[in-house]
């Protein structure tokens, strides 16, 4: 009897009990699990499935079978794919640089105490607020060689009397797409940088002035460090959006003329049009490494900014 009692006591003593920390951790994991499952279902599964499809010859109506790298080989041998690599990089780099320049300039201007700056800020946001569809169709009309706004201005100003085929010539098509893309995208830069500017304490500028710093020195020593983090994150986000942007090219040129404005999203769309889902997925997958780097960089920057 005493042995039994002793055994029961021993068992109760030896039973491993979770520490309070572990219990809290378990509880926390339990709370997070639904979110993780949701993310896996809504993001992880489609993401991995798209990668899987890119290695198959799946077409509409047929799951297809594993074809290894055949879709990627087909793409690499396609002139459109090679052009889309170069064009996508060009559009992202040039339009980001232009958006930075315009967004920063306007943010610095509007950050001053100017009369009617509230209205000015609202007007500057209009391109961002308008539906992309409307924006790019409007730009298409502006670029029309006959009766288009741009040629009418040039003709009216006596600068040129012919018909510049802005979207139909290799030399002008890509720049035309970039200009429209910049117009649509700069307000995001403007508002982000303006928000960052307004967090810089006025005392820092006062101190710099007292120290005899001129405007450029104040920008370099006070303004730029204050907005640097935002500029980096805006650059990364804008790069991702621009690289994935479809409407700008599709509504203006459909990737032409020739392959002068062909970009990844349009190429993927062509894959969908031809019902070659495996091939369309392969186009998207080839973009993945670059976009993944940008996404991870943006996330890391954002975290670092939050910690600072």
């Amino acid at each position: 009897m005493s042995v039994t009692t002793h055994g029961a006591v021993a068992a109760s003593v030896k039973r491993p009990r979770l520490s309070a920390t572990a219990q809290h951790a378990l509880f926390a994991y339990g709370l997070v699990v639904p979110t993780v499952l949701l993310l896996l279902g809504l993001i992880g599964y489609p993401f991995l499935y798209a990668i899987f499809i890119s290695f198959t010859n799946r077409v509409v109506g047929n799951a297809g079978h594993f074809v290894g790298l055949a879709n990627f080989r087909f793409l690499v041998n396609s002139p459109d794919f090679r052009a889309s690599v170069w064009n996508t990089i060009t559009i992202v780099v040039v339009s980001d640089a232009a958006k930075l320049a315009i967004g920063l300039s306007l943010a610095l201007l509007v950050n001053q105490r100017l009369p009617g700056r509230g209205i000015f800020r609202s007007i500057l946001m209009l391109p961002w607020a308008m539906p992309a569809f409307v924006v790019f169709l409007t730009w298409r009309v502006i670029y029309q060689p006959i009766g288009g706004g741009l040629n009418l201005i040039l003709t009216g100003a006596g600068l040129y009397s012919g018909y510049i085929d802005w979207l139909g010539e290799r030399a002008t098509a890509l720049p035309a797409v970039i200009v429209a893309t910049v117009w649509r995208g700069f307000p995001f830069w403007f508002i982000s940088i303006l928000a960052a500017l307004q967090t810089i304490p006025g005392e820092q500028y006062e101190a710099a002035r007292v120290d005899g710093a001129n405007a450029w020195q104040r920008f370099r020593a006070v303004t730029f460090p204050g907005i640097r983090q935002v500029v980096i994150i805006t650059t990364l986000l804008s790069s991702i959006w621009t690289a994935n942007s479809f409407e700008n090219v599709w509504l203006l040129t459909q990737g032409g003329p020739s392959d002068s404005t062909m970009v990844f999203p349009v190429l993927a769309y062509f894959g969908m049009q031809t019902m070659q889902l495996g091939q369309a997925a392969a186009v998207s997958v080839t973009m993945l490494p670059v976009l993944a780097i940008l996404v991870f960089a943006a996330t890391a920057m954002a975290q670092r900014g939050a910690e600072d």
Partner: protein
Amino acid sequence: MSRASSWTRRHILGASAGAAALAIGARHGALAAPAVQKGSTLTYWGGLIFSDQANKTLTDAINKWGADHGVRTEVVMINQNDTVQKVSAAIASGTMPDALDVGLDLLIVLARQGVFLPVDDTYNAIGKDHGGWLPPVDKASNLNGGRFGIPFGISGNMLLRRNDVLSKAGFPNAPTTWAELVTQSEKIVKPPFFPMGFCLGNAGDGNTQVNVLQSYGGRIADDSGKEAAIKSDATRAYLTWLKDAYDKKLFPPGVTAWDGAGDNNAYAAGTIAFAANTGSVGIAARKDDPDLYQGTLYSALPGGPKGVISPIGPQLRSIPKTSKNPDGAKALFEYLAQPGYTGAYYANAIYGPVLANEEQLSVFGGKDPILAGLLDLVKKGTAPGFPDVYNAAYADVMNSFLIPKMIQRVVVDHWDFDRAMDETQAQIQATYNKYT
């Protein structure tokens, strides 16, 4: 007076009418129309077209059929540009409708995958009831001897021409060859009026150039439908014709980047004299610009040294294998082939007829030049893809716009013909290889 002599004319006419009615009834009985299950449901994806009235006519007709037969109908009109994506998603998720409208491209691909039910019985029954299928329609909708879709309209390009301008310049008749079209264009070109409004961009209209190429003897692939055959003297002759016209600035600036609305916009703006169009621009002009409508005439596409290539594009109704109401769908298809419906539909949709009896519909009587042109197209048109083999690889080449891109290499990038043909030959072959 004999008994027979007591039959008056009225008796004879009455007896004849009764016999005819009995005969019609017997024929319908012999065809054994599909049994419609009362209380069942039928979902239908209709192809949305630009005419709201035509879309409404279809929707109302389906709902009326459902109400008459005790079937719950659900009609969803799908933008035809989105059909591929929606059908693709529906197949993957097992949510295909009970019946749907499809174009020939999609029908070929999906029939190949075994997605659709064969509908030979319904096809034959409808043909028998309405004087038979028009021969080009019958040929175009035959997939390796089987029927997987019921044609309900034919689209295709006609040549629209500014008769008011051309007549004044001494050209009262439509050009019969592409070379003649250039000759006429040279006489009337006067910037900003550029006569040849043919899309050379990466859009469906750009593929009209494939028909011109084929009329010069050019081919996408060989007769087996497996080997690319674009590099040829015939293609070179076509490119010579094209570049000559382009260099003479007979094409409007911007054609190399036109989208599907490019020719419509230019024609409506009065800046071009010719367009290859389904007639939509004419219908729009009827309401918006009566002068333009009056000044426009419609004819078959011109020909090249190898004749006229003017393909017809059938629109079809099909039944997925997953349909829960295939008999209901077949009965609906038969109902939608009745002249009471088709007459109202054709009056608003820009489709040509598919059945022999439909030629007699008042809408095709010649009052409307667009519908008369469409009837002409159906009679004289060529099978899709002809003289090439219309298979999935051919459709892929069309949807990838490889021929417009070859043209752009020549007129935009200034490549020589051989270089442009070599690149296109390689791309077409790579495309065909995917299907072998």
